[in-house]
């Protein structure tokens, strides 16, 4: 046995059979007021349906948004994973770069050091004449000069004006 409210709801929704409809409408005290209320209920239903439909669309968008976010999170996670996987390659690359840079710095420093040292080493390779003198009484016009032939690394003490001697002095 349906209650009045159930019958009323079914009447508003148009779900009463012909017999039930006739009985229910006959039982209504003010059919015109009921019809007006039914019309309002339909309007309200249409409105709710429309609004609920829009709400459903919003939910879908929200759902899509959630999915997108999740995809984005998963993508980030994957790229992080990828980052972890390639980290050895980056380490080797960094090592190579560091090694190359260190070698370059070493070469630059070595060149500077060699440049600084070079004159000293050159002078060490060559014989140096510290001083020279001739007897001014024996050779009053004698002059002395000195030079080095860097190609042959020969150091020469060159005298001019020494007393000339006869060829007999060439004897062994």
């Amino acid at each position: 046995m349906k209650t009045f409210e159930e019958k009323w709801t079914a009447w508003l929704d148009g779900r009463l059979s012909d017999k039930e409809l006739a009985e229910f409408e006959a039982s209504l005290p003010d059919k015109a007021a009921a019809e007006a209320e039914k019309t309002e209920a339909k309007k309200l239903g249409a409105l709710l349906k429309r609004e609920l439909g829009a709400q459903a669309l919003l939910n879908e968008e929200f759902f899509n948004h959630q999915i997108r976010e999740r995809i984005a999170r998963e993508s980030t996670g994957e790229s992080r994973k990828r980052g972890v996987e390639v980290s050895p390659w980056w380490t080797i690359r960094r090592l190579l770069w560091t090694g190359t840079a260190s070698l370059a710095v070493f070469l630059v420093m070595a060149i500077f050091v060699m440049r600084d040292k070079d004159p000293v080493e050159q002078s060490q390779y060559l014989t140096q004449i510290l001083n020279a003198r001739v007897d001014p009484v024996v050779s009053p016009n004698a002059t002395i000069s000195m030079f080095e032939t860097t190609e042959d690394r020969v150091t020469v003490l060159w005298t001019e004006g020494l007393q000339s001697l006869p060829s007999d002095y060439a004897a062994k």
Partner: protein
Amino acid sequence: MARSLVLFVAFALVLSTATELRGAEMVWSGLVIAENVEQPQPIPPELTRIEQPLKHLFGYNQFQVIGQSRKPLKTGQEDWLATSKFFGLHVNARGESEAGYVLNLKLYKEKELLLETDAKLSRRSPLVIKGPQVGSGQLLLVLVVQ
């Protein structure tokens, strides 16, 4: 790292050994008469190393040794004499440095001092001194670390 260290130590040992082996070095001192002759004699073996600079610098084609001395240097304090009939070259070593030997050289004509010089003789660089004119030639003093 450890391998590099071992290599470095080995290299240092080789270097130090080479330095020790180099300890006693021979210094050749020669009195040389340079002349221009029609048929020059071959250059003495002691001068082969500096034949070209000798010829280029002094313009002679023959070089003959008239007196020489070969002295091993151990302490760097040795002294010696290279003599010919009339000339004497007295060499007095006054110490050894990384670059070579500090030498005092005196050239005598009989007992007369003609020339005196102090030089730092390098192991890789011969010393040539132009002495007096002798006849048509020239007296040269040559010192070489052999």
